[in-house]
């Protein structure tokens, strides 16, 4: 049906049409006709009577492709489901996918392309803090809207970004509190890969351990990204005998780190280890037998037992195969399109300023999130629960602790 014929049709039969809607003859929740394009889009976005364009911007190539694959798969799943349930304001979502190629300037360039050339209404993407920091000025200048899925170091809040993963304090403080109480931990050994996220996280962890928990940091260590030799570090840990190893080693290094810990006899029956950076995705490479009994602190695990999650896991596996696994960030990425849909429908408009204003009101919530109930805080981050998962041999985690909903606090006082 073309634009004009529908207008004509509506003009003539408007009353009848409204009556049909009222009578429930037309069942879809929202029809595009209820929201004329000129009203829902005053800023020239790529919105027609039938469609709305959004961008997906992740690394499909390069070193980060390993991690970002799951995130973009989840975003596509969410968009497919939204389309099947009638779309947003009666419009079907069209995806324009761009490849950030694990290269930060490319992320900035592709962001500009998506916002300026394609006029997309929202972008779901980025993974590393470096890629987000590169894209951020573009989103602010062009007034775009980015849904960012990774747990990250915090110390940031932008009008143009909605953060669907946890910021540092949500993840770290709850994890350390649990291990201090449950395992009676007094001494901690901190180890991470050498870049901004582990270093900032460890800084927060050290402050919390020393000032709040009254514990002691007996060692702090950073290894270059991609390093595979942990022999010397493991010997140092053996000398210091910490109650807890607190780890933020990322990517492929993780595999070497856990394999070598296991080979050196540092296993869960003798040593408590809590990591910030192992999800189901990493376990595929590490192997469950090397992780068995160690703990991860995350907001989401694939094994979460609730109806939302059962449905999500089934849908994800149907789309991406029985062997696919879902990690914390994959789930956070899945929330992006749904949060956007909720905000757009509340605003009754695709305009970024209106969607942001509604998002900042603090009452955008999802009952259907696989992780459970989430709510958007005016500071652009999510209220979320933090969970401790204990890894099993089969590569899945058993949730042994669940916090209450934690308020996001990207600028924690006294921790910087």
């Amino acid at each position, binding site marked *: 049906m073309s634009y004009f014929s529908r207008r004509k049709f509506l003009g003539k039969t408007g009353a009848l049409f409204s009556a049909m809607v009222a009578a429930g003859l037309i069942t879809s929740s929202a029809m595009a006709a209820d929201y004329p394009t000129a009203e829902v889009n005053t800023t020239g976005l790529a919105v027609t009577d039938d469609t709305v364009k959004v961008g997906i911007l992740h690394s499909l190539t390069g070193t980060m492709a390993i991690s970002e694959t799951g995130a973009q798969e989840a975003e596509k799943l969410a968009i497919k489901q939204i389309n099947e349930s009638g779309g947003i304001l009666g419009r079907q979502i069209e995806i324009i996918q761009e490849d950030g190629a694990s290269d930060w300037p490319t992320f900035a360039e592709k962001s500009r392309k998506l916002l300026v050339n394609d006029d997309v209404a929202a972008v779901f993407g980025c993974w590393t803090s470096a890629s987000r920091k590169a894209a951020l000025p573009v989103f602010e200048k062009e007034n775009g809207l980015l849904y960012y899925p990774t747990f990250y170091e915090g110390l940031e809040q932008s009008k143009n970004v909605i953060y669907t993963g946890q910021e540092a304090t949500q993840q770290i403080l709850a994890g350390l509190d649990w291990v201090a109480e449950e395992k009676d931990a007094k001494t901690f050994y901190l180890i991470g890969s050498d870049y901004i996220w582990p270093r900032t996280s460890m800084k927060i962890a050290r402050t919390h351990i020393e000032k709040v928990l009254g514990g002691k940091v007996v060692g702090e260590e950073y290894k270059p990204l991609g390093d595979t*030799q942990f*022999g010397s570090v493991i*010997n140092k840990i053996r000398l210091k005998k910490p109650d807890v190893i607190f780890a933020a080693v990322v990517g*492929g290094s993780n595999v070497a780190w856990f394999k070598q810990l296991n080979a050196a006899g540092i296993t869960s029956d003798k040593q408590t280890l809590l990591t910030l950076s192992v999800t189901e995705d990493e376990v595929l490479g590490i192997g469950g037998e090397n992780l068995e009994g160690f703990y991860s602190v995350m907001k989401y695990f694939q094994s979460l037992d609730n109806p939302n999650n059962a449905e999500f896991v089934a849908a994800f596996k149907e789309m991406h195969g029985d062997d696919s696994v879902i990690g914390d960030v994959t789930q956070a990425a899945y929330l992006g399109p749904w949060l956007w849909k909720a905000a757009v429908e509340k605003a009754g408009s695709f305009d970024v300023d209106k969607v942001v204003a509604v998002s900042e009101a603090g009452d955008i919530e999802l009952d259907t999130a696989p992780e459970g109930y989430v709510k958007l805080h005016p500071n652009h981050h999510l209220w979320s629960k933090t969970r401790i998962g204990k890894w099993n041999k089969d590569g899945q985690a058993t949730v042994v602790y669940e916090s209450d909903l934690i308020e996001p606090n990207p600028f924690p006082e006294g921790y910087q």
Partner: protein
Amino acid sequence: MGEYSIQELTSIFAMQGFAGISLFSVLLLMALGLAIIFGQMGVINMAHGEFMAMGAYTTYLLSVMTQSYFPDLMGYYFFIAIIASFFVAGLFGYLTEFVLIRHLYKRPLDTLLATWGLSLIMQQSFRSIFGAREVSPTLPDWLMGSWMPTDSIFIPINGMFVLGLTTIVTIGVFLLMYRSTWGLNVRATTQNRVMSGAVGINTKQVDRLTFALGCGIAGVAGAAFTTIASTGPTSGSLYIVDTFMVVVFGGAASLFGTIASAFTIAQAQSILEFFISGSMAKVFTLLALVIILMMRPEGLFSIKVRK
């Protein structure tokens, strides 16, 4: 270090010693293949890391196949995987030499560009075939865990395995290059190609087999690497820097130089890392290398060749 008992310190020193030797064997195994290709043939093979990844993926494939079809053989498949990795990477190296490298022998800098391109193509192929995620073969049970000579000393078995494998490969390369007729042919060809041809050596054949041998050894290194870390499409590019570092520092054409260089770098890195942080240890090791290379541009041991 007064807070630790003598026994504890002894154990730590024993394990620290092994950590150094373990790193040494990994570096040496990675560098041997490149030392042959770069050292003997003067070809700058930027795709060397991808040949390692190829060996690792071969091991992974065999692990998956063994698990689904012959689960009883899981304990032994790893030996077959090492040999298969050698032949898969070697065969691909043989073809690469035929298609790409042989046209570029007189232009060493162009080999750098061509093999760099090849490495990108190979990375993308890995990504298309195996996916972007990192994979890890299931290791036989006897490769896991550690050997404990005393209560407090843990020597990782996978580390000992790589050490043993490196020793065998190194002796093999030595015998082949310095005690066989074929090795003599290789060395003669690289020193004076025209004269070698004149005395009846099939120099083209020698080139092709040498390149294939270097790639095959990279494949073995890749297979060994699966015991330590996982494999992704870009894993190769992580190894290549360390590998070139060892070869250049050792002096390109010398087997003994490669061994000495891997040993020096590994021990420096491992000892420094025990006292300062991992990243700083790497910085200091690299700084020391740069300074030594400024004094000895040809590397630690260079073979005197008439030019």
